[in-house]
């Protein structure tokens, strides 16, 4: 893990997409994902259109499509179960070789698969072109309650330290000859998880003390953000409207 956790998702580039204000990208991502989610599964042409549009945003953002594909593997565990649906669903069946496959099940699997892949692609575009800290600032600009954004910010800030600490504990265990192979050897892992919990809890208390020492009274200060050019919102509106129009057309046609 080490340093660079916030860069784990971010791809350093200087594209037009990278330069856009985070709040505009958040609105765009939300609009794109919502359109994809409400599109009826039978409108295959709409999904092809979405894929092309997402692909072109990736090109403008100077992301390699291979990179997006590799990162998409993250959704694999979640869609895996979708592959079973055609075999267990009921209703009209078609025969392929000696197995019977449910038609409704096939549609179900397709629905989950395509929406998961496209939705995940959108979030990959967002996180590859926006630093995590900027995403949180963008949420703040969009008036997401400061309670939520500060919880997210703290989580990201201290996740790094906690993973480092876990790494050190594991090194210390390995250095003393611990090499777990069987479930029965899992006890030290459970103990270290407990220790980590206590340490993180104590860290939380110290961070809070440090905040109080600097005059924190329970409300996070908000900082003024530079205003952004209207042309950015214009571009975002075009993207979101194209997605929304596709979704509406698909809903009407099917």
């Amino acid at each position, binding site marked *: 893990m080490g340093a660079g956790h916030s860069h784990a998702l971010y791809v350093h580039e200087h594209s037009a997409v990278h330069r856009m204000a985070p709040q505009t990208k958040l609105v765009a991502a939300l609009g794109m994902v919502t359109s994809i989610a409400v599109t009826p599964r039978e409108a295959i042409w709409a999904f092809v259109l979405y894929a092309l549009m997402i692909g072109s945003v990736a090109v403008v953002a100077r992301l390699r499509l291979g990179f997006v594909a590799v990162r998409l593997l993250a959704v694999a565990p979640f869609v895996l179960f979708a592959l079973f649906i055609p075999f267990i669903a009921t209703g009209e069946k078609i025969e392929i070789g000696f197995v019977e496959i449910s038609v409704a099940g096939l549609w179900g699997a397709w629905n989950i698969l395509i929406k998961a892949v496209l939705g995940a692609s959108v979030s990959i575009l967002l996180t590859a072109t926006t630093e995590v800290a900027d995403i949180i600032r963008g949420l703040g600009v969009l008036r997401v309650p400061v309670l939520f954004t500060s919880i997210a910010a703290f989580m990201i800030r201290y996740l790094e330290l906690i993973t480092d600490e876990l790494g050190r504990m594991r090194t210390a265990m390995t250095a003393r000859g611990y090499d777990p192979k069987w479930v029965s050897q899992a006890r030290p892992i459970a103990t270290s998880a407990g220790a980590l919990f206590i340490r993180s809890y104590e860290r939380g208390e110290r961070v809070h*003390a440090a905040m109080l020492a600097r005059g924190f009274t329970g409300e996070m200060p908000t900082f003024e953000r530079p205003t952004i050019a209207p042309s950015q919102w214009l571009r975002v509106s075009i993207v979101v409207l194209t997605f929304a129009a596709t979704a509406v057309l698909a809903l009407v046609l099917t």
Partner: protein
Amino acid sequence: MSATVEIHGVEFAYPDGKRALEGVDLDIEAGERVAILGPNGAGKTTLALHLNGILEPHVGSISIGGLQVVEQNFAEVRRMVGLVFQDPNDQLFMPSVREDVAFGPANLGISGEDLQRRVDGALDIVAGTEFADRPPHHLSGGEKKRAALATVLAMAPDVLVIDEPSSGLDPAGRRELMGTLAGLPMTQLVITHDLPLAFELCGRSVIMNQGRVVADAATGVLLSDDDLLAANRLEPPYSFDRAKDSPRP
């Protein structure tokens, strides 16, 4: 710019019953720089947390520049007393150093250009302008220490309490930090195990042990009293004593 610190008969026990302070008395002049020495568990950090009301004494009183450290004065006291924690990771929690440095003054109600000036000024003192926009976990240990100091300097404190300023720093980083501290005009309490640092920076030192002040004198006087140091689990570096010209056995 600087304020007095008056500590009278302060006693404190943690909720688990561990008694940390057993009646601390200490008076510090405005602008004075005092080292607080002592073994682990002597109560040094606990005392520091009392100075701006993070912990409150069960018995005794503390005042800063004549202002009592009690709940109704916390806002003002926390502006006056800047506390730099030992682990900068406890102090730096915002997404970027700049926002972290702005956190304190923003809590004081400062905004806009004034806030900007405060932040730039504090970063300038610690030579931290170059890492201002980086997230804290991308900083080196020395940079984190400097950033943590800047977060407190931005509040323009009258008293600076700094816990183990040199721990975890390489010699050059330690030297730079000492230069920075030496150039600051406010009253300073420097908690440290680093006796050469105490000797160089602070004209006066206090030794704490078992929750009490056991010695309070000019740093040079304290550091040349071998028996006193040994009794308090302190040890001057070997090179301090030029009389010992033979190698250590």
